[in-house]
Every structure is written in structure tokens, then in C-alpha cells.
């Protein structure tokens, strides 16, 4: 276990940025997002939820997968093997770290998404343990510990004047070795401070939800009237899906200028009317009812059936951002509390 004084943080980040592309949470115009680290940026160490979740580093909102040119001879440039410059993410919150494991189940499953894997392999994740949850945080409902981030390469814990760094993977150890000379050995006192911070982080949750049995209950609710009532409020924007750290649906788009073009993979949202719209014009999800149902069934039924976990980490972004206050917290509460159909 190592540590660094907060006053030295900028030096540490400067060293890291020499080795890789380094991204940190930064506030700009009042909105916090991961942004490239620069000497003069102020790293935001307090905001819990950055606006766009860090899944974008492995699964970008927009990426060219191939480029072609047939003006002369057919030339195809395949981007899949080129993805992934060496990257370091600093300050990823534990809920978002655990979302990476969920994305892995999809993109590192069969078949493996090569570009995704390269980005994952080339990226070192430094998590920042949470100190105090927001009112909309409910990660503990999914058995996550806000002070711990088992999937991260390095766990950083804010202990007041200092940040304690503990490597959790070989990649993490290598990263800390690089910083030798700048970071110090942590003492047993520091270790205790970390433990205290982790314990303290578990307190102060004002929001929780019982997810027990929700998947099973949903098994029999595909045709339930519940969805008829629920979807009415939805205005079909894509906010919930794009701020969600576990939403992972994409669409393939062709950008062509005659002889040249690109094939682009981009985030798609099940809230949109052209989601699963087939080439011949049929859409198996013709109205917002089916789309809203899809979103919650995917997260709370299909995904756990297939992969064992609910596709939600309780970050609370959809709770905060949904313009009509229709969110997963409400659905879990209502499904969990509902005795069968409503």
C-alpha cells in the first residue's frame, strides 16, 4: 500500500500522463465528465457520478470499425485491431468499476469483441472509493461496497490530506512501481484510515431497494398491465440509456460518400422509435410500452438470467436525470412489492 499527499497529486498525474492517455473527472460549465488530464485542469475529487459514465472508454458512443475506398482498387481498413492506446482512468467510482465487469460479460463473452478487449487490456483503472453517497446512490442494494472496487487495478482512498493507493492487480502494481520516488509507503495507520473510510462510506445511505425475487417475478410479467401504466409518462428520450453505466446496445451505421465510406458502431437506445426497426419496416417493439418494458426486462430479467447479475449498479444517474422521474428504483420497488400482476 502506498500513499501520496494531495498537494502532490498533480505531480503524480503528470508522471502518469507521460506514459499513457490519462483521463480525470473535470467540471466544465457545471457538468462533470472524464476529460484528458492537463497541467491546468482541476481534478474533481468529490462528485460521485460523472455525467457520461466511463464505459465510453471501452465502448465509445461512436467508433469507426472499418473504412473502405473503392475509387481505385478496393481498400479496406479494419480498425478492430488498432483500438486501444495505452490509457489510464483516474477517479472511477466503485459503481462504475463494477459496471465494467458487466460489460465484460457481453463483450468478452462469445464472440469476443476485439476492439473492446484491446481497450480493456490497454487501460489501467484507478478507482476512487466513495466517502459519502448521494441521495440517489443505491449501490449497496446490489451488494457493492462504496469504499471498495474489486475490479479496479488500483484503489485510491481519500483519507483527508492524503490519498492512499493500493494495487489490486499486476497492472496496478506496475503502475505504482512507475511512481516510485514520488509516492510513499503507507503505514499501518494509513491502512486503518482506509478501513475506517470504507466503513464510514457504508453509512449515510438514504436510498435502498430490495432486489430479491425481482427477476423471478418478472418471468411472468411480460404481458402484464403494469407496462401499460408505466410507459405513459415516458417521453422516449434516451437519457436513461446514455447515462447508464451498464446499457450496452449499439447500432451499425454506414456513412458513404459514393466510392468511400465508413462503418460506424454507435450507442443505440431502446427508448428510440427506430430501435430494432427492421429493414423491411417491421418493428417488434412498435410503441413506447414495448420499449420501456424492454429496458427494464433487459436489466432485471434477461441479463440476470443470462449472466447471473442484475444489469444495474445503483449509481442513480437515471434517477437524477430522467426528466419525467421514471427510473429503475421505482420499477424495482413496484415489482418487488407487487404481488403478481398489477
Amino acid at each position, binding site marked *: 500500500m502506498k500513499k501520496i499527499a494531495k498537494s502532490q497529486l498533480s505531480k503524480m498525474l503528470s508522471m502518469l500522463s507521460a506514459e499513457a492517455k490519462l483521463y480525470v473527472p473535470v467540471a466544465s460549465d457545471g457538468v462533470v465528465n472524464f476529460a484528458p488530464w492537463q497541467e491546468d485542469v482541476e481534478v474533481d475529487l468529490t462528485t460521485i457520478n460523472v455525467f457520461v459514465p466511463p464505459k465510453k472508454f471501452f465502448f465509445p458512443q461512436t467508433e469507426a470499425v472499418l473504412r473502405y475506398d473503392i475509387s481505385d482498387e478496393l481498400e479496406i481498413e479494419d480498425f478492430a485491431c488498432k483500438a486501444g492506446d495505452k490509457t489510464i482512468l483516474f477517479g472511477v467510482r466503485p459503481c462504475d468499476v463494477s459496471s465494467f465487469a458487466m460489460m465484460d460479460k457481453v463483450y468478452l463473452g462469445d464472440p469476443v469483441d476485439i476492439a473492446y478487449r484491446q481497450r480493456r487490456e490497454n487501460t489501467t483503472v484507478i478507482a476512487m472509493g466513495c466517502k459519502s453517497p*448521494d441521495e*440517489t446512490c443505491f449501490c449497496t442494494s446490489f451488494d457493492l461496497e462504496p469504499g471498495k472496487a474489486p475490479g479496479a487495478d488500483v484503489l485510491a482512498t481519500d483519507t483527508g490530506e492524503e490519498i492512499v493507493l493500493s494495487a489490486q492487480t499486476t497492472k496496478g502494481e506496475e503502475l505504482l512501481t512507475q511512481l516510485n520516488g514520488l509516492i510513499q509507503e503507507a503505514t499501518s495507520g494509513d491502512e486503518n484510515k482506509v478501513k475506517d473510510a470504507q466503513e464510514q462510506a457504508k453509512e449515510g445511505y438514504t436510498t435502498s431497494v430490495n432486489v430479491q425475487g425481482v427477476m423471478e417475478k418478472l418471468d411472468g410479467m411480460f404481458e402484464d398491465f403494469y407496462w401499460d401504466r408505466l410507459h405513459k409518462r415516458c417521453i422516449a428520450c434516451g437519457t436513461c440509456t446514455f447515462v447508464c453505466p451498464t446499457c450496452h446496445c449499439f447500432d451499425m451505421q454506414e456513412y458513404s460518400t459514393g466510392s468511400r465510406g465508413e462503418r460506424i458502431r454507435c450507442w443505440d*437506445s431502446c427508448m428510440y422509435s427506430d430501435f430494432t426497426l427492421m429493414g423491411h419496416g417491421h418493428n417488434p417493439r412498435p410503441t413506447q410500452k414495448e420499449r420501456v418494458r424492454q429496458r427494464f426486462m433487459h436489466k432485471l430479467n434477461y441479463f440476470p438470467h443470462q449472466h447471473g447479475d442484475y444489469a444495474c449498479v445503483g449509481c442513480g444517474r437515471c434517477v437524477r436525470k430522467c426528466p419525467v422521474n421514471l427510473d429503475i428504483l421505482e420499477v424495482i420497488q413496484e415489482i418487488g412489492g407487487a404481488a403478481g400482476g398489477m
Partner: protein
Amino acid sequence: MKECSEKMRKVASDALQKQEVTAVLGWRKKDFWWQSPVAFIESVDDVDQLVWDPFTVFNPVKYLLEDYDCHDKVGIFVKGCDSRGINRLIQDKRLDRDRVVVYGVPCEGKADADKIRASFASKKIKKVTIDGDSLIIDVDGKEERVAAEEYLLDKCLTCRYPNPVVSDKLIWEEVPVRKGVNEARFARIDNMEKKELEERFSYWSRQMDRCIRCFACRNTCPACNCRVCIFDQAEPRWLGKANDMGDTLNYHIIRAFHVAGRCFECGECERICPAGIPLQELNRKLIKDLDEFFGEYEAGLDPEDNPPLGTYRGEDPAGFDES
């Protein structure tokens, strides 16, 4: 405030009981102190859900479009800003006036949860109520009384139509219009116009760079009421799905121009934008320009007239090119 909620419940209950309407749109309370989503009341048993509180801000007018086609007659509570949306839909021939009963609820402004969070620990807030010029914030059982003015939404502080411009029944007395709102209307635009082109471009590039293309601005807007939006068309696809600056600007410029002369300044696009993009500046810039080119015009006041870009007059500055 409590009396207001009571009055709304009474009105809704009477209307449903007498079968004047088969559904009522209003607002209700949800889990958090800052959540007052739209309520769809279809039964007298549910009217007690209706509330009037500092967060009943979401404009319910757009819900009159599709979902409620199954209802013969819908009652709807509208604030001043919302009410202009009713005229918007009628003028655009998207709403049959006879199908709605409009209950006007004059409004002194709604609270900005972010402003409250900046001063009080959100987790400890139990309830926020309004009492005249004061906001009463219940922080862990202790009541803090603060000046409402400091915590209202910016759009409410510059609201020129706090009283419904259309209603079948006014539920309580009209409220006075705030001082200085006419001067404040174009303040941000005047500032922006003074800036150099490069500065304006870098400002907008930075704002638009945050856009995630969720289309919340479009979807909440009563002026965006096309049956199929051009941006949703898959074949041909007018707007690329790739989130690049070209297409993002394409979207935002076309959206702003399509509502030009029809935007009635409810400000919901800007308020609900999850990325905090100041969309109202675009809308107001176009309103200001239209006023200069074609004479002053207020959208959403008269359902019978034609918006400036939906009509042609001989004296229009740009001639009518028939070539």
C-alpha cells in the same frame, strides 16, 4: 400551497364524477423531495395523488398528443408557460380544443432543486413548500425559511406569462407578473451578440460537445409535434447516429429553426437537458431576429393566427422568389 392541492383535487374529482372528462393530467409527488412528475388520473379514487408544490414544473401538454387519444375528453392543469403549449398544439392542428378541458393554475415560479442542493444537504431535506415569497425547507425536521427568489428556476424569474393564457376554469386567482422580466428576456442574447464570432463559435462548440443526443429537448417540446420527426427517420436517414459535432450541430440548428416563430419560451428544453446545454439562448436568438425582421410576435397566445414563418406578406424583407 396545501389549499391549492385541495382545490385541484376537488376540481378533478368533480369533473371525473360528472363525467365531464375521463382523465385528468396534473402532478403528483414521488420518492424524493424534488420529484413531482406528471400524474395521469383516470379514477376519482386517485385524485388525492394530485399536488401543487415547488417542483410541479414539467409541462404536461405534450401528453395530450398520442397516449390520450383513447380518452374522449381530458382535463389538464396548466401553468402560464404550459398553457401556451395548448395554443401551440391547436395552432399546429394537433389538438382538438373540444377534446380538452383546461384548468388554469396561476404560478409564482417553481424551485430549482440544484440551487437548493447548493445550500442544504439534499439527503437531509424532507420536504420543500412555498409560502408567499418564502420557501420553507424541512431539513431533518427543522424548518428553514428562505427567500423564494433565491431558489427559483432561472426561467421562472424571467417568466412573462405566469397566468394561463387559455383556460376553461381558473382554479385560483391570477398572480402579478414579476418586475423587469421584459428587460431580462433577451439579456443573455444581447451579451452573446456582443461577442466576436470566434468566441461565440468556441462557446457553442463547447456546449454542443456535451450533447449525448438523447433528444430530451425535442421530446419534451410541445412545438416539436411532428407525427414522425425527420431525425427519427431511418430511410432515408437525415441525421447520422454517430455522435460527431457535424451531426450534433445539424440536429440542434434544425431543431431551433423548426421551432422558430413557434417556440413559446417555456424553457423546458433547457431545464431538462441532462448535459446543461443552454438551448433557450438559441430559441430566444431566433425569436429576437424574427421580431426584428417581421415585427414583434408572441407564439402561443392566439391559436387562430399564423406564425411568422408560416405566412407570407408583401412587405417581408426577403422577397418571394418564384424562380
